[in-house]
């Protein structure tokens, strides 16, 4: 197991190299020049040339890329072209925040999703089942942007219960976590239901019931644990997506997460910021997937990694 984990971690190196290479190439393919954006509309050609030279943007692309990789390998991500903030500091702040938001959202998603899915599967075709699956359909189809605005309107503007956006205490995380978590809750609910129904038809469940176990024991000890494998895959993917792709939620609620750093970096053509953020997103995605794989072994002892 340890060897497996180490091997997967080693794989991070080529993965990250690929991520950086692709993002670097794509960024340089689209028109736009960080020096020009920074210098603004009034800038003369001379101003732009000066800024390009200062940040090494006048060097050949291969040299720029090599420079970034060499420095990044030594833990030096440089400074933001736009604001001169050290990128390591920016990434750390943003990642801390994104982790908080993602954890809160996955908590919302898994609590609602697992509960709804389980109850639905044990009461198939009941009113609860129909209602919760309709709710799940709603959750999946609702644009995050719209849901976010709706939540703000109700809980911040009308009821004054929670803040409309920004950062601060845990209260600031409630609405974004619901907005971000609801779509995942819906996916998890549907997956749990389907997986539970599938497992419930298996022979060993019938045997368990025939042995005389209480229904609660059958569901929790026998069915749920096995039904969790596909749900875990979804769980891992959703969590990974939250870590890197929460940009809409971050925008509606004005949250300084890694997703917005990335998108704003792209708009400003702030190359070092984009590359740094892509590395962080890539790493978290790989780590979450690894954790998911490790969790498989916990839920299903037959799964072994050698």
């Amino acid at each position, binding site marked *: 197991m340890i060897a497996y984990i180490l091997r997967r971690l080693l794989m991070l190196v080529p993965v990250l190299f690929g991520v950086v290479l692709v993002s670097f190439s794509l960024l340089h393919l689209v028109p736009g020049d960080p020096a020009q954006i920074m210098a603004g509309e009034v800038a003369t050609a001379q101003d732009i040339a000066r800024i390009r030279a200062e940040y090494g943007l006048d060097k050949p692309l291969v040299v720029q890329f090599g420079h970034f990789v060499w420095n990044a390998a030594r833990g030096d991500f440089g400074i933001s072209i736009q604001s*001169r903030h050290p990128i390591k500091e920016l990434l750390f702040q943003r990642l801390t925040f994104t982790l908080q938001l993602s954890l809160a959202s996955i908590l919302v998603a898994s609590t609602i999703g697992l509960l709804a899915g389980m109850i639905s599967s044990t009461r198939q075709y009941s009113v609860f089942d129909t209602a919760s699956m309709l709710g799940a359909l709603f959750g999946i189809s609702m644009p995050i942007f719209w849901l976010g605005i709706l939540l703000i309107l109700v809980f911040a503007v009308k009821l004054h219960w929670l803040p409309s*956006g920004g950062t601060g205490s845990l209260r600031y995380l409630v609405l974004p976590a619901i907005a971000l978590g609801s779509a995942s809750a819906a996916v998890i609910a549907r997956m749990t239901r389907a997986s539970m129904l599938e497992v419930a038809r298996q022979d060993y469940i019938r045997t368990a019931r025939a042995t005389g176990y209480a229904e609660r024991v059958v569901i929790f000890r026998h069915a749920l644990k096995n039904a969790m494998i596909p749900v875990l895959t979804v769980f891992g993917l959703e969590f990974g997506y939250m870590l890197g792709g929460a940009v809409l939620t971050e925008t509606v609620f004005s949250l300084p997460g890694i997703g917005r750093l990335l998108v704003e970096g792209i708009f400003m053509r702030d190359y070092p910021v984009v590359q740094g953020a892509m590395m962080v997103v890539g790493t978290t995605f790989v780590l979450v997937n690894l954790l998911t794989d490790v969790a498989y072994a916990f839920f299903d002892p037959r799964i072994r990694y050698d």
Partner: protein
Amino acid sequence: MRRTWWALVLALMVGAMAFVPGARAATQPVSGGTLVYGAGADPDSLDPANTDSNTGEAFGHMMNNYLVKFDAKVKIHPDLATSWTQSKDGLTWTFKLRKGVKFHDGTPFNAEAVKYNFDRFLGPEKPLKSGLHDVIIKSVDVVDEYTVRFNLKAPFAFFLNNLAHSATGIVSPAAHKKWGKDLTLHPVGTGPFKFVEWIRGDHVTLVRNDDYYEGKARLEKIIVKTVREDSARVLGLEAGDYDLIVRIPPEEVPRLMREGKVRIDAEQSNRTLRIGFNMTKKPFDDLRVRQALNYAVDKESIVKNIYQGLGAVVPDVVGPLNIGYAPIKGYGYDPAKAKKLLADAGFPNGFKTTLWTPKGRYLKDFELSQAVQQQLAAVGVDAKLETFEWGAYMALTRKPRDEAKQEMYLIGWAPSTGEARWGIYPIMSCDQWAPTGSNSGFYCNKEMDQMIAKSVAATNMKERDGFLQKAQEILVQDAASIYLLATKETVGMSLKLHDIINSPLELVYADKDTWKEK
């Protein structure tokens, strides 16, 4: 009898209202409190010499002072300089400086500090805005501790405007020596508020400068939060999370005004929007075509319907609040005339072209372009709309003449020095063709250039404004763009907030007199 009875009741009610404490509080400024300001973007830099964003410049006005400053109508007033004289030949300006002013780090403000700040613009560091001064100033001399002399390369009629420009905020020489370019992360000025922290993408915090030369500011603290999404800012203001927000979408304004829970303040900004023509491409080299397209667009209706009245039609590229603005006659809406001019130019059935537009850079930019597209279609001109994200847009519209692909393109300009010369020169003169300058339409009229040059050299203000008027008349005659409108900066604030500055330079900030009811 009955009438007397009612009069008595009314008099009692009015008398009672005068003693309601809340009613008095609104007119009596109080000290203390925190202003939470929802800005549309992070500052790009907190070093005045290196910022090119409205947010960055607004911070500059809260943390710094200038030798001379603009008031809310872009008129010049003394600030760190108390008086000044100009030599007869216009080449030397001498400023008497205010005594007893200290930077936030405790170091004194004096003539040496002024010289240090301008030497920074003239020297090898070349901050972003050095172009504002290094083409004009030859050298700066310290006459005595509180007198400083500027020697210019040539007379420059708008020198005071350049000194009042946001970039010319006087920063602490000690701080600049210590931090260099990283002054942006550790700004130190003399202004009413001091820097505390900048968490990028989240907020910047300022606190009151207790040693401010004009006396302590009323507000104790300012937190400027980055709230990029327009609707999130409006909702946050309505929820009471922000005391002040900028750039309210025009379609929200009627509702917010009707509900009356927040205060809306719309001030004319000096930004004008226009549709540029690439004059090197046919048929835009034909004056009749350019005039026809100007007649084809109903600007009044655009201001009314797209901007909800929050804008003003302009005759050319200069906005009404700039020094040297000439209220001359522009092109009215006359589609019949437009069709006739097009027919005369050999296009009785119109022609096909493209109209480039940014989306989200200027207020309602995309909607504006759509409206222009539809109105051009009405006179037979089929303009295909092409949208670009701002970074790409800038790169594409700043290509040299032989690589430039734009035909018609929406573009805005806001002269940050508050005068017409800077409203025209960088975007319309022959020596400012892209990529050297911002003249992306490759318009060139030597006579217009001469008028601008003469306005710069004028030492008599009336004469100066005469040259500027002539330049604007030439721009109208040449129909160098479809001239559209000047936008208004619409800010919203809590009913408890008072005396916010909403400047025509698109800068919204608090000064020492800004106050908030308890």
